[in-house]
Structure formats: structure tokens, C-alpha cells
């Protein structure tokens, strides 16, 4: 089975090699529109070795309420009644939850807007990791938590703060400020092994990424849904073509001017390269949901995966973003609440999975969700929820050992009854750390366990470094 996959990839590689030569010529020709700045070595693109793999981070900004994405129905520790009691007016009726089972025999319910995810889960292509969040060290309960004052180096800085927790999730560095994200560091670490012939950034920011995508050496390409932006002011105007070309190569000895030139040059080169590769690629047949912002980003990611060979990349990381999860009020609203966001998420992920099947890389691509924090179990007075800590996340792809819930789904009680609740409102200490989540993905992606600290500096604070959801 594994061998079959590899054989299939080799065949694809040969076809793509021919395609690349053709596209490479086109690219060179088109690049002369802005002169020599588009030049690159076509043949070098084939140094990449080993099976291709991609990671796709789907960031749910604002803090997704995992408890209304995945609710207990009949489990060994609690039933739907516990959920209904805790959630009160925000509880989704049991009958409308979409049932999924676990390997242990528990029954949970997915949000009714996520039938696509239910299908993928049932088909074994999707898994859920329960109650994951930012931790510096394991905190088994609130007694452990309370022994550290706020600001202790053993706790994430500024818990429950959007900006801090966002930075922490993306950097996997819960203390202070990091200049690099773990996606960027992952690309840094693997660049020599897989991307030495890369013509294009290994990390692509499809939607509003700052930190996650940036490494010490890796600089993300920025490709919004509508595709890379080339220079629109040049066109067929020879005077401008030549002028821009000369400006970009005009060395006046000023370091900041040269740095700006270099960035402008990357923008032009990367846009040319990608536009030409995409133009020569067959159209993606998979239908993506219309009007779905996340779907549009994932479609662009899929299209770029489709031209990975032309870009010379053996490892790629994508970052997509869906906003609006900061649901302090009216969370169940069908238009402005969490409900339509989960629908977008489910439909977009399903289309993306189908696209990877179409491209023959379903086994090679893993998508996963992230979000700065979960939300309080107890609703607030505005039919919404407030910032909390741990939450549940989705992992999707052909290599995912799906159809199961990993980690520890928490008890949905609040206050003294729940040892994980640090605020009395159901702000639950994560039982799995982001570092462990990231470590599992990183090992699948090619980082040996011994090397994980190069990407995840705090990972050795946690014993379990492979959660087993990827095979």
C-alpha cells in the first residue's frame, strides 16, 4: 500500500518534469516583460528529492468555541445532559447534532452545520484533537496552575489575550515575543533536505499570516485568493518595462534601498513565476464552495500544490485564515454567529480534501486547524462566550488516522467541580499542548524526534511528542 503510493508519485514526477521544462520556457519568455529580474535556473528545479508533503494551517482567528463544534452525546465520562446543563441557552439540541463515534465506543456530536466533516471523519480522513492549547509545561489541574503567579515563566504570557495567544500559537513560544513562527522554522529546518532547488518560497501565506510563516531564513510568499499580484502598471509599455527593470537593479549603495529593492524584486519574480506556472497548469476540477473566503484561500493553496514540481518544492506549508470567531454575543445567530463560520469551515475543508484527491496528493497533504484559544464553557449574559484556553481542533488528510478523537475531551462542568477550570466560568486548562500537536505534525513532515527542539523550543517539557493521529 505504501509502496503503491510511492510508485504513483514517481510517475507523476516524470510527467511533471516534462511539464516543467515547457513551463520553464514560458516563464522565461514572459519574464522578459520585466527583464532579467525573472531569470532563474530552470534545470535546478529538479534537485528536490523524496515524496512531496504539504502542511496547511487553517487559522480560525478570534478564538473558536470548540465545545459547540464537538459536543458529548454518550461517552464514558459524561452525556449530552452534562453539555446541555453547562451550555444552557447555547446548547445545540441533541437531535440535530451529527453523530460520530470514537474507537473507544464513545458517541459525540458535530455541529449540525458540518455534515461534510462528519463524512470525512466517518471515512477515516479526519480526526479531532480535544482540548489543545498553549502551555509551557504540563498543568494537570488548577492546583498546579495556581502555584504559579500570572506572568510566571511556567505560564503562557497574557493568557486570554488575542494578540499574545495568537503569537504564541503561531510561534510556539509562550514567553515573550518571537521573531519566527514554527511554520517558518519547520521550513528552515527542512529546506536543505527537500527544498534546495526551490524556486518559490516554501511557505505561502494565503491569508493574513504574520508570524507563523516567517523563519530565520524562510520568507513567506504572499498569495491571496485572487492569485499573486504582478505589476499592473507596466503591461506592454516598453518604456516602463525597461525602467522598472533598471530601477530594480540600480545599486546606489544604500542598504535600506537595496533591501527594499530586493523585496520588490522578490514580489515581481515570485508573481511571474507563480502566474506562469499556474497559467500552464490544468484547471482544478474540484468545485469549491462559492462565496467562501476560506474556500478561496484553500483553492489557491491547492492550485499551488498542483504546480509544486514546477516550483521545485518537496515540502510546502500554507497558512489560511478564517476570521470572526470572537463570538462574545449571539453566538448561535445563523448569519453573524459561529454557525455560518463552521459551515464555511466544513465545506471549505471538504473541497480542499477533494482537490488533493484530484491532484493525487491526498496522502501527502495534511490540513489542521488552529485558533488562539477556546471559549468559556459557561455562556455570558449576551448569549455568547468569552475568551478561555483549551479547545478542539481538526486534522484532515489522506495520511490522517481518522475517525477518532485524540487527546482528552474535558468534563464540561465549571467551578470547583472541574479541576481544569481556572476562572470558574469554564476556562479549561489544555490537556494537550500546542507543542505536542505541532510535534506530531512536524514528525510526519520529516523532522526526527531528536530534532524537534530546533522547531519547537519547549517541546521537551512534554513527554508525549507524537500523538499518533498521523500515520
Amino acid at each position, binding site marked *: 500500500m505504501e509502496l503503491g503510493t510511492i510508485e504513483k508519485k514517481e510517475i507523476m514526477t516524470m510527467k511533471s518534469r516534462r511539464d516543467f521544462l515547457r513551463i520553464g520556457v514560458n516563464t522565461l519568455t514572459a519574464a522578459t516583460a520585466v527583464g532579467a529580474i525573472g531569470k532563474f535556473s530552470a534545470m535546478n528545479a529538479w534537485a528536490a528529492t523524496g515524496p512531496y508533503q504539504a502542511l496547511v494551517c487553517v487559522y480560525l482567528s478570534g478564538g473558536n468555541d470548540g465545545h459547540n463544534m464537538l459536543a458529548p452525546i454518550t461517552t464514558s465520562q459524561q452525556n449530552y445532559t452534562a453539555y446541555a446543563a453547562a451550555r444552557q441557552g447555547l446548547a445545540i439540541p441533541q437531535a440535530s447534532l451529527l453523530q460520530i463515534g470514537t474507537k473507544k465506543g464513545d458517541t459525540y456530536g458535530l455541529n449540525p452545520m458540518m455534515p461534510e466533516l462528519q463524512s470525512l471523519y466517518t471515512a477515516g480522513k479526519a480526526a479531532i484533537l480535544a482540548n489543545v492549547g498553549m502551555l509551557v509545561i504540563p498543568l494537570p489541574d488548577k492546583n498546579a496552575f495556581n502555584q504559579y503567579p500570572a506572568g510566571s515563566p511556567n505560564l503562557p504570557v497574557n493568557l486570554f489575550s488575542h494578540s499574545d495567544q495568537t503569537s504564541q500559537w503561531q510561534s510556539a513560544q509562550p514567553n515573550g515575543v518571537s521573531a519566527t513562527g514554527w511554520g517558518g522554522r519547520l521550513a528552515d529546518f527542512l529546506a536543505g533536505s527537500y527544498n534546495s532547488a526551490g524556486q518559490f518560497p516554501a511557505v505561502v501565506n494565503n491569508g493574513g499570516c504574520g508570524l507563523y510563516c516567517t523563519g530565520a531564513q524562510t520568507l513567506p510568499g504572499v498569495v491571496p485568493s485572487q492569485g499573486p499580484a504582478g505589476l499592473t502598471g507596466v503591461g506592454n509599455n516598453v518604456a*516602463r518595462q525597461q525602467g522598472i527593470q*533598471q530601477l530594480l537593479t540600480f545599486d*546606489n549603495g*544604500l542598504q535600506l534601498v537595496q533591501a527594499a529593492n530586493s523585496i520588490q524584486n522578490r*514580489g515581481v519574480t515570485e508573481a511571474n513565476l507563480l502566474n506562469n506556472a499556474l497559467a500552464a497548469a490544468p484547471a482544478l476540477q474540484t468545485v469549491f464552495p462559492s462565496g467562501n473566503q476560506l474556500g478561496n484561500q484553500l483553492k489557491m493553496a491547492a492550485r499551488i500544490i498542483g504546480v509544486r514540481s514546477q516550483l521545485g518544492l518537496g515540502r510546502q506549508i500554507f497558512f489560511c485564515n478564517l476570521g470572526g470567531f470572537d463570538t462574545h454575543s449571539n453566538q448561535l445567530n445563523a448569519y453573524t454567529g459561529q454557525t455560518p463560520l463552521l459551515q464555511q469551515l466544513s465545506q471549505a475543508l471538504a473541497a480542499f480534501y477533494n482537490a488533493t484527491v484530484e491532484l493525487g496528493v491526498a496522502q501527502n497533504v495534511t490540513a489542521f486547524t488552529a485558533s488562539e484559544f477556546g471559549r468559556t464553557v459557561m455562556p455570558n449574559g449576551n448569549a455568547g462566550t468569552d475568551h478561555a484556553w483549551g479547545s478542539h481542533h481538526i486534522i484532515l488528510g489522506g495520511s490522517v488516522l481518522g475517525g477518532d478523537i485524540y487527546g482528552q475531551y474535558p468534563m464540561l462542568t465549571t467551578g470547583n467541580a472541574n479541576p481544569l477550570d481556572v476562572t470558574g466560568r469554564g476556562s479549561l486548562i489544555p490537556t494537550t499542548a500546542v507543542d505536542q500537536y505541532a510535534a506530531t505534525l512536524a514528525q510526519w513532515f520529516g523532522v526526527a524526534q531528536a530534532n524537534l527542539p530546533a522547531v519547537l523550543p519547549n517541546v521537551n517539557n512534554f513527554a508525549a511528542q507524537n500523538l499518533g493521529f498521523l500515520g
Partner: protein
Amino acid sequence: MNRSTCISVLAALVVAPALLAQSITVSPKNDSVVAGQAKQYAATVTGLSNTSVNWYAGGVKGGNSTVGTISSAGLYTAPLNLPAQNPVQIMARSQQSTNVAGATYINILAKGPTISSVSPNPIPTGNLVVTITGTGFLAGAQVIETYAPYGSIALTTTSVTPTSVTASGWQGTGTTAAFMVKNPGSGWSNTIYVPIATSGYYNLSVVGGTGTGTYTKGTVVPIKATPASGQTFQYWSGPNVTDPYSAATTVTMSDQSITVTANYTTGPTYSLSVVNGSGSGNYAQGTVISIKAGAPPAGQMFQSWTGATVASATSPNTTIAMPAAATMVTANFVSIPVPTMSTVSPAIIPTGIYTLTINGTNFQTGTVATLGGTPLSTVVVSASQLRATGLNSAAGTANLFVTNSGVNSNAISMQLGPLNPQVSYNAARHFLQQAAFGPSAGDTTNVQQLGIQGWLTQQFNAPKVSSYAGIANQNSFTPQFLTNAVTNPDQLRQRVAFALSQILVTSITKNIWTTTTAPFEEMLMADAFQNYRQILSDVTLAPAMGQFLDMANNAKANANGTILPNENYAREVMQLFTIGTAMLNIDGTRKLDANNAAIPTYDQNTIANFAKVFTGWTYTPPSGGAVVWGSYINPNAPMVPYPAMHDTTQKTLLQYATPPGVLTVLPAGQSPQADLDQAIDNIFYHPNVAPFVSRQLIQHLVKSNPTPAYVQRVAQVFNNNGSGVRGDMQAVITAILLDPEARQNDQPGMTQTKDGHLQEPALFVAGVLRALGAYIDNTNYFAYELSNMSQDVYNAPSVFNYFSPGYQIPGAGIGGPEFQIYTPYSAIYRDNLISNLFGAWNNNIATYGPGTSIDLTPFVALAGTPQTLVDALDLTFTGGTARSGLKTILLNAVTAESGGNLRRAQTGLYLLLSSSYYNVWN
């Protein structure tokens, strides 16, 4: 064996011995032949032993001259003239059995025309009109053209005379075309082969005259009318005729095929006499004749036409419709009026692009203003007003006068550049890149007149003008910000406040409401020239900050200690607003311990103690009632204490050698206000504040990478303004802007490799608009653009601002805070924004949404001379300091631009504003 024998033999062989019906078949069946031409016939005899036949034409054995002759071997020769009975019967009758015969008919075609030449020669490609000369053309003649690889193509006949036929069609590329003509019912003419011209040849078709041919662009072709008997030449119609009323004149070829037609009349003509002008001749009634006044005598100009009705009696070039009588029209001349100038504004001509408004009398079409001997691009607004545009790079005085066709006005001596300038134009422009949102023409003159110190004093004393009063919603901040930045005079205040807003950050991202954010930003503008201590305490108690960093409604610890004070503000006020995380030297470099490690400024315990200080504050009751704990934000008044929620335990603050009266430990039992005041003093007097804040202000105003010595000079002023005052913002700003390191680039050629800073998006947009003197109001569309370039004004992603002061550009080995939001995508986005502003509009006035318009007329007016345009761009945007290599690039591009003067101006602007040299302000 001759041919007929052969056919007979063949016929004999075909006849089989079998019994067959007796018959004769004649071939070819129903053929045609041109008059006088021959055609061979054969007879196939069946069922007879003797296959010999006799041949008949028109029923006459052997035929005759009327029906044509046919030989005993069946060779038919058509008659020279078409017979009355046409077609003619051709018959073969058996000699053996005369009742056995076979027949067919032959159609005698008229002889085709004979062609002798094809014009033009060679044939041009593209749309084509050919005239074929020869003899025997009849009405309905058809022209066919054959050329590889397209085969034969019938052209459309447009006119036929007995000796010429004209046809039109389309000619593709090729080497040779063949032409044949036939009349209706006739055979084809002979063939004439004509080469096909390579590109660059165009067809001139002269109808009713000579001169038809194929010519290259610019060729002056003599043409001549060839009136038939009884015709009188009237005029030429069609383009590019030099003198349409002259029977013999010329046509100048353009880059397309053209047709000119000589118009004739056969009716009566009348003489037109044009006195003092051209157009005289004999014309039929109703002919519209262009008439043109001749050159007036010296000192005179055209006044009017008299003597007959013309289309426009006051236009020197007009038309007349020919009456049915001999007519005389006269061009009258009068003395040229002497123009006078009364007032000129502005009184002082600035350096760079300028536009003068000149009021006076007797301005007329063609009036030109001249300054210092150089004619200016002049627009005649009215007889009493002119608008003149030029480029000035001189100082001193120059005479201005205006001219009507060589007649000069009075002269006015104009001041070039400000009187007694305190600083050069270059220096003023460069300074305004640091102290304002870039240079505008007006502020440049102000700085030149006042000097840098004088301008700073004026700015320090000028009231705050900019405001966010009445803006509609979150999305209105950026449009209002840019409108203020581009148009308002409180430039230094705005620029410093913008820097402060990026050090002491609040953001719409959490504060949400416009009414919360606006008072905070207005407060920073109001405080920009106050003491930093004042700024710090105002920011601390600002409702926007209280909400953003959670000091509002921050309660003391609960009884059992399970809830502790919020540390958010406690941390950021130290980390980001005042002292940073590491101990600094006065020059901004880090102090190091014995192990060369950085020395922390505070620890978690310090934060916890400051967190206690910042408890017990809530929002002011909106209606003046009792203070309520947990109340909703009131953005219009500072936060107020709520002592019951204040932590009154002892607080251990930053430990350092404080000046007298500044505490490092706050005693227990103090009020919220006393704790707050003493804690802010404890922070404010920390030795890190001066280098920490000074360096960031330098980075925002002057350069990303100041030398430690520069930081130290400014920090020393921060610590002591010379009168013993610490934190005097006016002194600090002055020290930053007057420092030799800030001023060294006032003159070209002094730039050091690490100088400058990348213009952040808001600065870039405002700077471009100010340099261009653009119109802007708060309905502009730049909120979208700035947001897409990651600088949605006052909506930074977090308290860490849009970019960090410590940001190192990956791979460049140098710091550049603004580069944190300058991605490959946003760099191209910025180029494309410029392209959208200037790239493709066919109007000198570029609008960008409803609230922005930019008049490129001054640049367009200078674009006829590329070097002048490039000099103007340099003076406008790079203060006359652009490196020669950059100017060469611009000059080459502007010179190569073939789309006219507007395109040249747009291309020059696009390239300069896209250049990294402009985007990094040095």
C-alpha cells in the same frame, strides 16, 4: 501522327465488332471559346464501319467567317465578332451514312480586355485599391487577384472606364500577386504580375487625377487633376492634400492607404477672389471652400473677413459657401493689441514646478508668458487671465512678460525662491520629510523663509488644527488621517503624534468604537509638545488605554487570592512605553553584565507590584453621578479612582538610584491617585526612558539605524533640556531634528549606507499627495489601500504596533522597522497603487475615488522636453538630490515613452514613485 488521326484511330479501336446502334457523339460538349480562338473537336462514331465524318459549324459545312470555320479534322476557329446566333452548333455527320450525325454547341465569348499595367506597383498590404489600365474594359468588369498561399480572390470593382478599372480588396503578405480582368460574358484578359510590398508601403489612390501609387510614410506625392472635356476642377476631397483648391498640388503620405478625389463640375463656375489670403479660384455654386488669411504685416494680426458671408468672420481659417456670382472676400488686419500684466500670483516663484496666475488685459489666443527668457507653458483662461507653468531651479530675480505675436507686455520682476532664504530648497525638502508628512510647496517656502529653528518654533506655538470630530465610523480614521496629514498646517504636531500613537499603542481591534479611539488620538496630538511625563499619565488614565490594556475595572486581589490584579498594563507600560526589557546605556545600547548578558529591567515580581498600583480605576460616570465599579466605557473623560477596589498593600517598584522624592517602594494605605502618580514617577525617572523613547522617536522621524552617538545626544536632552527639565518634548524633537546626523543629508551626496527609513504606507501616500499639491478630502478611498498594505491607521494588530522598532530585515543585515509590513506582496501592491493613481488615465487630472484628485498639468506641460520633466520630478520628490544613475533611468524611460506628454508624465511619476530610492527617505 497528327491529332485528328489519333482521335480517329482511338475511335476505331473503341468500336467493337458487336452489333451496336449507329450513332455519333461530338466532344467536348457545350464548351465556350473566346472570339477568334480555336477549339479542337472529336467525333466518336458507333455502329458504322467507316468512322469518317464531315464537320459543320452553324449548319454550314466547314463553317464560314460569321459562324466560325471548322476544319475536316474538327478544329473550330471562332469568328472575330460574336455571331447573331450564339452559341453556334458544331456537328459531325457520317460520311458513310449521312443520316447519322451528332452535335453540340459552343458559346462564343467576347474577347477579354487587355491589361497593360497595375497601379499601385508594388501592391501594399492591408486594405487595397488597385487601378488596372488597359483596353476593352466594359461596365461590370471583374478583377481577380491570385497570390500564394490564398489562391484567387475576386476584388470588388468600384469604377470602370474603357481604359481603366478600379477595384478594392485586402492584400495579405506575400511576394507576388497576379491580376486578370474580364468583362461580363467575356474571357479573361492577359495576366500582369505585381510584387507585393513589404510593410511600410501604403497606397495612394487618386480618383480623377494622376499620382496613384505605393509610397512610404512621409512621401510627398505630386497629384494632378485631369478634367475631362467640359469639366472644371473644383477641389480635392480626401486627406493630406496640401492645397485642396489647386489642380496640381501634393499629398503627404501617412501610415495608411488613402484615397483623394478630384471633384469637377460641368455647370457654370464663378470666380472667388480671396484678398490677403488663399482659396481663390473658379467654383460652382454651393462648393464649400476653405479660405485662409495670409501672414499679417509686421505688428498686425488678423481681424476679420469682409466682403461676403463666411462661416466665421473672425477666424483666420474658415470656409465660404460659393454664391452664384463672382465673389471677393478680404482678410483684414489690425494692429496687435499690447498685452498688459497687472498682478501675478504667487508673488514668489518657488523652486520646482510652479503655476502662475497672471491677471491683465488683451490676452488672446497664442499669448505666451516668458520668464527669464524662457517661454512658459501658457493657458489663456480669458482675455484678462493667463495660467503659466514652468520649472524653476534658480534663485534671485527674473523678468516676466507676456507676448502677443511678438508684441510684449510690461515686465514684472519676479522673485525666484524665497527672499533671503535661511536654508536651501534641498534642505527644506529634506527636513520636511522628517518633520512633516513630506514636503509641500507651501511648507518648503515656509521652511526656507523661517529657517529650521524658526519653523520649529512656529509649529510648537501653532494650535492643534487636526481633529477627528464627527467622523462616521472606524473606516473613517484613515481617510481623515490622510486629509489632516496632507492639508493641515499642524504638520509637526501630527507627525510626532503619529509616532507617539505607534509607541503608546491602542487599537480599534479591541477598542472597537470610533468614539473611544478618536479622543485618544486627539489627546496624543494635543500632548505632542508637552512633557513625556504628562503624556505618560494622560495615556495611563485614557479610557481607550484602560480598555485596551485592561486597567479599567482592574480589581485588587480577591479575599482568598484566587483572582489577582490584571498585569496587562503593568507589563506594557514598562516593556513598550518607557524602559523596555533590558537595561540601556545612555546611547541606547544594552548594558551587559559580567557574562556579557543583558540585564533585565524588571522581573515578574515588579510586574505584579505595578499591577497592584493599577487597580481601583474605572470609567467616569457619563452623567456626573456616583462612580460605579465595572461601569461601561466613557471615552470622553480620564478614568477615575474607585478606592474600594484599589490594592492598598505596599508595592515594590523599579529599584534604581532615584532622584530625591521619587520612591522605589510605595507605602501601604495610599490612595489610587497617590500610588499612580508615584509609580509613574518611578518609571519616568528610570535611566532607560531617555534612550528608549529617544531612539524610537528618531526611528519614526529620521532613520531606522541611528548611531549610538546620535541617540546619546538626544537622550541627554531628554534627561535635561538645559533648564533642568526632564522629558521636554519640544527640546527632544528639536534635538532630533537639528542633530547633525539628521541634517547631514540636506545637501546631496552626504548619504551614508545605513541612512534613512522606509516610508510606512500612511507616510508614503500622504507624502506623494503633498508633493503633488493634490486635492484630498475625507471621502477618499485610501482606507482600503492602507489596510491592504498592513497599516490600517489606529488599527494595529496589537499593542506591538504594525511593526517593531527592533525588526531586522531578514537577509539584509540591517534594522528596518517599517520593513516588517513590506512584503513582496505589499511592495507590488504599492507599485500598483501608484500605477492606479497615474498609470492609465487619459486626463491630466487623475482622480482616485471621490475624495482625491491630482492635477498633472504642470508635469505634462514640461514633458515635451524629457530632461526638463525628469528635473521637475527630481525637484518635486527627491528634492533635487536624485543620483545621476536614477535620473538617467527616468530620462531613458520618459524619452522612450511614445504615448505623448501625459503618458510621459505618468511614466516618469510611476517609475520614480515605485523606485526604492524614493520609498526610502534618507
